[in-house]
C-alpha cells in the first residue's frame, strides 16, 4: 500500500516534469481511487515535480516553453483533485498581487513568476497585463496584500513601478514590493524603493520568501476561498 502510494506520488511528479497532462490526469485519478490524501498528492507529487522543474530552469535545462507545459500538467492534476480536497481550512497564506504595469502587454515573465510563487505556497492574485497603477493600489488595499509584484519588459513603462510604489505609500499600504523584467536592474529596483528584485522566476521564489523570513505572522485559521497549489506555512517553509 505504502509502495503503491509512493509510486503514485512519483508518477504525479514525473508527469509534471515530463509536461504530460494525460499522465497527470491519470495519476490524479489513481490518487482518488486509492484514497490517498489529495493534499499530500499535491504537495508530495505535483508540487514536488514543479520544484524539480524550477531547478531545471535555474540550471538552464528547461526554458519558457517547458515551464508553461509543466505548469499545464500540474494544474490539470490539481483540477482532478480539487473536488476531493477537505473543506476544513488551511494556514493563512501570504497574499500576493501580481501584474504587468500599464503600457506593457508582455506577460510571459509575469506568468512564470506567478506559477512559481503559487507553487511555493503564496496565494496569487493576478491582475493580468497592462494594469492601471490604481488597480494595484486598490487591490493591494482591499486584500491587505503582503506582497505586490510588478513586471515590465519595456523601458517605456518601467517608471510606472516607481509611481505605484509611491502611491502605495501614500495610501498607507504596507505591502512589500518586488519588481522584475527585462530592463530592470537591482540598482533601479533599489532607487525606486522596491523591497526586492528578482532576475527570473526561480529567483523570485527565493526573494519573496526572504522578504518574510523575519516576520512572525499570526497563523490565522480560516476557510480558504480557493485552494492553490500547496498547503501553506505562511509563505515560508
Amino acid at each position, binding site marked *: 500500500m505504502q509502495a503503491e502510494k509512493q509510486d503514485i506520488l512519483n508518477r504525479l511528479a514525473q508527469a509534471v516534469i515530463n*509536461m504530460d497532462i494525460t499522465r497527470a490526469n491519470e495519476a490524479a485519478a489513481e490518487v482518488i481511487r486509492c484514497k490517498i490524501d489529495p493534499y499530500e498528492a499535491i504537495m508530495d507529487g505535483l508540487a514536488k515535480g514543479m520544484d524539480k522543474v524550477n531547478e531545471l530552469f535555474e540550471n*538552464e535545462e*528547461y*526554458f*519558457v*516553453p*517547458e515551464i*508553461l*507545459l509543466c505548469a*499545464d500538467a500540474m494544474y490539470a492534476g490539481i483540477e482532478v483533485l480539487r473536488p476531493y480536497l477537505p473543506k476544513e481550512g488551511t494556514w493563512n497564506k501570504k497574499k500576493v498581487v501580481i501584474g504587468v504595469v500599464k*503600457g*506593457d*502587454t508582455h*506577460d*510571459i515573465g509575469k*506568468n512564470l513568476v506567478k506559477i512559481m510563487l503559487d507553487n511555493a505556497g503564496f496565494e496569487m492574485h493576478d491582475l493580468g497585463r497592462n494594469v492601471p497603477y490604481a488597480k494595484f493600489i486598490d487591490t493591494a488595499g482591499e486584500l491587505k496584500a503582503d506582497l505586490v509584484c510588478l513586471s515590465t519588459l*519595456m*523601458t*517605456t*513603462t*518601467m517608471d510606472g513601478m516607481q509611481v505605484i510604489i509611491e502611491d502605495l505609500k501614500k495610501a498607507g499600504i504596507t505591502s512589500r514590493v518586488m519588481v522584475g523584467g*527585462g*530592463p*530592470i*536592474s537591482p*540598482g*533601479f529596483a533599489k*532607487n525606486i524603493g522596491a523591497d526586492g528584485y528578482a532576475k527570473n522566476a526561480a529567483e523570485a521564489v527565493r526573494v519573496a520568501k526572504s522578504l518574510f523570513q523575519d516576520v512572525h505572522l499570526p497563523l490565522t485559521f480560516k476557510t480558504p476561498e480557493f485552494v492553490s497549489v500547496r498547503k501553506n506555512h505562511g509563505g515560508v517553509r
Partner: protein
Amino acid sequence: MTYKDEMTPKERMQAILQGKAVDRLLVSPLILNFASRSLNMTVREFCTSGKNMGNANIACFKQYRHDIVYIFSTTSTLAEAMGTKMHFPEDDAPQVETPFIQTREDLKKLKPVNPEKDGRLPVYLDAVKRCVDVIGKEVFIVPVIGAPFTTSAALRGTETFIKELYTDPELVHTLMKVTTQSVKNLIDAYVKAGGVPVTVEPVATGSMISEKHFREFVLPYLKEVYSHIHSYNLPGVLHICGKTKRVIQCMAESGADILSIDNIDLLEAKELVGGKVCLMGNVSPADGMLKGNPEIITTMVKECIAKASDNHRGYIVATGCEVPIKTPNENMVAFLEAGRQFARLPISLN
C-alpha cells in the same frame, strides 16, 4: 571637446565592408522610435505615416550623424501585415492586440505578404524611400524586419506558439515557412527601395527557448533569410536581445555576418564567436541611456570598446537594444561623442 569625423557614415561603412582603412569603428546606437523625438512627434504619429517616419529619421540623422539610420517601430510589423491586430498607444511602440492565427483552421487564410499593399509595410517603404532620397548619399538606410520566429510568434500569440514547439511542431513549421517567404518578399521590396534590410529575432532569445529548439525551429529559416540577403551582396545582420549566451553559437551559424547582442558579456561573446562574426553592442538601454548620465554612458562605451574593439571579425559600438524614447538628449550626445573619441583607430582609451 568635439571629435570631428573624417568620413561620412556611408563611406565608413563601405570601407569597412571592403576591408579598407577607416577613421574609426562604426558607432550605431539602436535609434528606432527615438527618432520621433527629433520632430517632437508622438510614436503613433511617427509610425503610422511614411512621411513622418521618413522626415523624423532625416531630422534625427542631421541632429546626431549616427552611422546607421534604422527604420523601425515594432518587431511585429510583418505579422501585422499578415493579419495580426495591433494596438497603437499614443506615445509608445505598437503592441500585439489579437494574434491572427486563433485556430488551426486560420492557417488556411495565411499567405506571404505583398509589401506594397499589406498593413503598414507601405509606410515603412515610403519612409525608406524618403530617407534614401534626402540622406542616402551620406548614410545607409536600414529597415528592420521581424525575422521568421518572431513574426510567427506574433501571428500565433507568443505563449501559445512556444508551447507548440512541443505540442504541434507541424504547425510551427507551417507558420515558419510562410513567414520566411514574407521576410524574403519584404527584403526584395526594401532593397528595391534602396534600403539595406536587417533582421531581429528577439523571441528566439536564450531567455526564452533552448539551443535545441533554436536549432530545430529557428536556425534553418534564418539560414534561408541570410542566403537571400547575400544574393544581393549585402551583409546579414541578426539582432537578438535578452540573454544570448546559450544560443550565440547558433546565431553565428545562421550565415549572419554581424550579431547585435544585448545581455551577454562582450568578452565572452568574442571568445565564443568572434572568429566568425562581427559583434555589435551592448551599452545598457535602461541603466545607461535612459537612467544613466553622460559620465556613466561614457564609461560604458569605453568598456565595450575595451572588450570588443579587437574582435577578429570587427566590432560596432551600439546599444544592446532599442534606445528608449525618453532617453535625454545629453545622454545620446554623450554616447556618440564617446564613440567618436574612443572608437578612433588605432584604439586608445586614455
